[in-house]
Structures are given as C-alpha cells and as structure tokens.
C-alpha cells in the first residue's frame, strides 16, 4: 500500500534517510513491538516507537501510576496518578500517533502467560525492574526465537544488550542466575536519575527500529554500559557460552519458569 500524503509528511524525516526510505517506513508501519514494563525504560521507548509509526505496540504492566514515577516515566502525566500505567501509556501514544494500534496487557508477566504474550510480536523490549522478570523474558525469547533488548538502569549507570536468535549470547550466558533477593540494589532502593531511563530506553527503541528496517549493527554479542558521572560509554564484548542453560548446545531449560519473585522491601 502506498503511503498517504499525511504519512509522507509525518514520517518525512525517516523517509528522507537512504537507510529507511518508503520501504523502511512501511516495514516500521507493519511491525509489532511488545514493551514489558511501562516505567523508566518503557516510557521513553514507547514514545519514540509510537512516534516512529510502529504499527502495533503491546504494553504490559500491572501497576498504576504513582506520584514517584513522574520524575522519570515521561509517558505519564500528573493527572494520570492512580490510573493503570498501560492505559495512561496508551493514551499518550495514541495522542502522539493516532494511526497506530496499542494493545494493553494489565498484568504481571509470568511463566504461564509469557509465551502467548510474545507470540504475536516481532521484537520484545524488556523494561522490567527485577531479575526474575529479566530471566523469564530472556528464557521465553530464546525459546520462542524472538529478538529482544535487555536493559537496566540504576543511579547514574545504565546497561543494554540485544539478543537475536541464533546470533549472539543471551542474558543468561552473561548472568547465569538471578542474584538472591536484595543482594543487588534496584533503583527503588538506590535511586536513579530520570534522564537515565531516557538515554537507555531510547537506545532500546533505536535497536528495535534498526532490527525492523534491517540496517546497521545491533548490540548482539556486546553489553553497552553507560556511566553518566564519567560520561563514559563502553561496549564490552560478550563471549557466547556453549553450556548456557537456555541457549547452549544442550539446554536444560526447555520451557519458561518463574523464579520466586523478590518482594521489594521499601
């Protein structure tokens, strides 16, 4: 289908790029991205993906908007406090771009629902804040052969990696098992600069766009680390682990499972 004059205008800054063009923009319009977590990372990612014209965006989160979220979760506004995050996110995305479809999943993602949830999507974006969820998303994406972007942020630091099926190491290759509850600080306990979500969440959106249009080098086989205080970006090479429990040569994890959810003590 040819792009309408309105679409040509809305997406002109994309289309004018030789790496995108009308072809790339049509790929973006036809693409489906699932964002798990409508928080510090998911908020900026969702804004940019909606603005870019990603045709179908799924957003999963069980929480409601809290006043303390607004320091960084830029998709929600003050009148949204108390509203389901997925609905608040959907309203903002559709206000930016009424042409896209936003599917909302107001639920915690767990082993019982994750395979069905990711099945319809081309790319998954992990914007969760806890390790059981990060390992669950990793395992499910490896098993379902779905590419995904992992990210984490804390204080003045952030990290990011992209998994592409059969191409690179997975999150479990690097980190093996979730740490025990409270062994590693999360941003609730440790704090985070709001703009960190903007930097790292936007990079996740960028990886999704590059994957969709099939251009450039993805962050597969590397962990990007960002230290804002030192203003230092580093790409650390990641070896693929042949005995990885989920993506290795003889995997022992054959279906997704839940680690006991660490109840965050505030």
């Amino acid at each position, binding site marked *: 289908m040819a*792009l309408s*004059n309105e679409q*040509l*205008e809305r997406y*002109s800054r994309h*289309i*004018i790029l*030789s*790496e995108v*063009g*009308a*072809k790339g923009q049509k790929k973006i319009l036809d693409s489906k991205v699932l964002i798990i977590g409508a928080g510090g990372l998911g908020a900026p990612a969702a804004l940019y993906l909606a603005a870019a014209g990603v045709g179908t965006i799924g957003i999963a989160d069980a929480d409601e908007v809290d006043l303390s979220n607004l320091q960084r979760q830029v998709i929600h506004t003050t009148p949204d406090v108390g509203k389901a995050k997925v609905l608040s996110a959907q309203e903002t995305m559709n206000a930016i771009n009424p042409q896209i479809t936003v599917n909302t999943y107001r639920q915690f993602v767990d082993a019982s629902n994750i395979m069905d949830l990711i099945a319809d999507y081309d790319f998954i974006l992990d914007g969760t804040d806890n390790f059981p969820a990060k390992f669950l998303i990793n395992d499910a994406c490896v098993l379902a052969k779905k590419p995904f972007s992992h990210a984490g942020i804390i204080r003045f630091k952030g990290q990011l990696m992209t998994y592409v099926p059969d191409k690179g190491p997975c999150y479990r290759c690097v980190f093996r098992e979730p740490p025990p509850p409270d062994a590693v600080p999360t941003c609730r306990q440790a704090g985070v600069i709001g703009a960190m979500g903007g930097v790292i969440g936007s990079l996740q959106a960028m990886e999704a766009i590059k994957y969709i249009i099939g251009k450039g080098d993805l962050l597969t086989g590397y962990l990007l680390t960002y230290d804002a205080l030192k203003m230092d970006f580093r790409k650390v090479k990641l070896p693929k682990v042949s005995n990885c429990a989920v993506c290795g040569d003889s995997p022992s994890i054959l279906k997704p499972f839940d680690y006991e959810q660490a109840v965050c003590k505030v």
Partner: protein
Amino acid sequence: MADYTIDETVDITDVVCPVTFVKAKVALEELEDGQVLSIRLNDGEPVQNVPRSIKEEGHQILKLIDNGDGTYNLVVKRITLEDQT
C-alpha cells in the same frame, strides 16, 4: 522529440516542502533502475529545490518542461546508488 519513455508519473503540487521532495523520492524508489518518472511540480520553491535534491540523490534530470500554468513537469531517470536499497 522525446528520446525517453515515461514509465510513471507523480503529482507533487498537492504538498509543500519538505514533503514535495519526499513524495518525489518515494515515487523514484518504486521504479526500477533506468526507468523514467515525470514529476508535476509548482513554480517557485518546489522548482528551485526539488530538482537539486533529486540530483544530489544521484538521479539523472532529463528535462524540465514549463506547462505555462504555473506548473512544471520534471523528467527524471532513476539511477540506483550503491547505498540505496
């Protein structure tokens, strides 16, 4: 006497900058290498800028015809650049 055959036409008089160029570029993208596109465009800013932008993309301008009604027809041959897909 024309030494070319027009394969496709596009009218960009219904849009304004920068969509003028974008619409022409998209129409060119959909052609095969060597095919010819006739672009109908307005006098003024479009006729000043669009031919230059198309040339910068590496395509070949064959002719600019003044229609005498404030519009022009720009005849362009598509040239595929290596970094275009």
